[in-house]
């Protein structure tokens, strides 16, 4: 799967979980950029992404991403 495809799928998940249709994600987006993205919803997002892509992150991975780009890279690696 292309990274751009993953990004758009992840964007949909963010919009759904955070209940905000206006969210636009880029590789450089961080939790500081999105109001609803706090430590609680972060867990919801991870669980939703795991379900959607049928993958499982390790606990180290969950805490390692600095921005959306790194998260996408991680998903992409798991799907490969």
């Amino acid at each position, binding site marked *: 799967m292309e990274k751009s495809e993953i990004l758009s799928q992840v964007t949909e998940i963010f919009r*759904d*979980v955070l*209940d905000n249709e206006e969210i636009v994600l880029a590789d450089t987006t961080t939790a500081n950029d999105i109001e609803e993205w706090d*430590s*609680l919803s972060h*867990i*919801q997002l*991870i*669980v939703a992404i795991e379900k959607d892509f049928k993958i*499982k*992150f*390790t*606990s180290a991975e*969950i*805490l390692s991403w600095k921005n959306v780009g790194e998260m996408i890279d991680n998903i992409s690696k798991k799907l490969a």
Partner: protein
Amino acid sequence: MVSDFKTLKKAAKNADTTLPKVKIALLGDTATQFLATAIKGAAQQNGFYADLFEAEFNQVEQQIFDPESDLHKFQPQFTVIFQSTHKYLTSFESMSSCDKPNAAQKRIDFLKEAKGLLNSKLIICNYPEIDDGVFGQYGNKTAQSFIYQNRKINYLLMEFAEQYSDVFICDLSSLQNKFGRDFCFDSSVYTSTEMVLSVDFVPYVSQRIVDITAAVLGKFKKCLIMDLDNTLWGGVIGDDGIENIKLGHGLGIGKAFTELQLWIKQLKERGIILAVCSKNNEETAKEPFVKHPEMVLKLSDIAVFTANWDTKVENIMNIQQILNIAFDSMVFIDDNPFERNIVRENINGISVPELPEDPADYLEFLYSENLFETASFSSGDKDRTKQYQVEAERITERKKFADEGGFLKSLNMVSEVQGFTKFLTPRIAQLTQRSNQFNLRTIRYTEEDIARLENSDNHKCFSFTLEDRFGDNGMICVIVLEKRNELKDLFIDTWLMSCRVLKRGMENFTLNTIVNYAKSTGFKTITGEYIPTLKNSMVKDHYPKLGFAPVEGKENLWVLDVDSYQEKQVFIKEK
């Protein structure tokens, strides 16, 4: 059905603060933010507003033992204690081998102490099992193993809860048995957040907690209404005939229906009223109940039997009239999705579980719905069906009399008037928790409260039974009077009656009793108050109807002058 976490979070965010409020404190030894949010959401969905206090992380002991703590300041109605199996395991692992066999008991000792310091009702989450495998299966044979102490504490918790009417167990362990540990626990989420409940599991836990609070607050199911064809037996009695309907032990689908009936019979024994609502000729519908050797349910188990060709909505309304209980205390089961939808859409509040297509799945599905939560149980509950059957007979009988007095006289009614004796305590507490409609102030009391009132110098308590020639209604009326000696006034703290005995002159008999007591003890006035709730509008004018005068400047407050009271005519004799 349980909503997902996202939906609950939204419900929590948009919580309606005008709903009846319930104050819940949540104490946990792991991160509980998700659970707190989900409890708020589930409360909202169940018609309550949860005013929730969430203690700081891992402060269970401090909050309970410090009398100045935020928990005590908050004054919750319910305190939820959620101690995780993980933390239990960690503390177990640091114990010496001579302490390990007492690990479970030690936790119970803590809870006993906590119980003494809390004024609220207590909801304790039990411990989903972790088998650490240290002893292999030998762990079942030694008190030194964690699995042994894990199962033991769940057992001891049941024993602990059994001793107090205001301690309840939220059964996480049985939920984990149903869903499996891998669903309930997410190790990577746990590692990064200290949350021991997975995001998908949290909604089930919050629903079970709210189920308990709702039951304590008087919202629970009292009646199961059942369709017949393809619900209680396989096939259509009118088409297939009695010898061809599927029912009975042995292989095949008949077993599913028999086992469902066995379960329903257990519900009836517990005090759930059973009613039948079927599109059939009455005689045809009753035939299996009378003649089929494999029928578990008999006609004597059914309080109201309606089989005709009217719509199910009309028939359920009819059942409601006879039983006189609210629609939201009813559950309707029917295999036909069409009938389910019509009933759901037209009868507000009734629960209509979405039965699976395959009757083989009915039971497991119904087990998991936790439809019949209750906050109390007394041994008299099982006789409830008989009382409602008798009521159906009375309704038929009343039609024969032209005037009310003639009918009432013909009933030969007798009432036994007593205080709150020890023997009656559970039933009285239960009535204060269950009665919603004929309840002037809707004050809920636990068994301990009832015992305290009976022994209080400042209170006088009465309980009333009512028996007539059709049968015994059991205890049907509870009065708590508060003595306001300096005013020479008796304040009616509680006046509640079972709706089964409406229109029998029981109100008059009760008031005569209260006034006689007032006269003999020198009270000059009796004050009554009506506190409106969503369900008690039927007694809005209770006091003025009985001749009480409004208290000037006070809405819903009424007073009766004792000396000028004219004893009311009644057709009830005191036993």
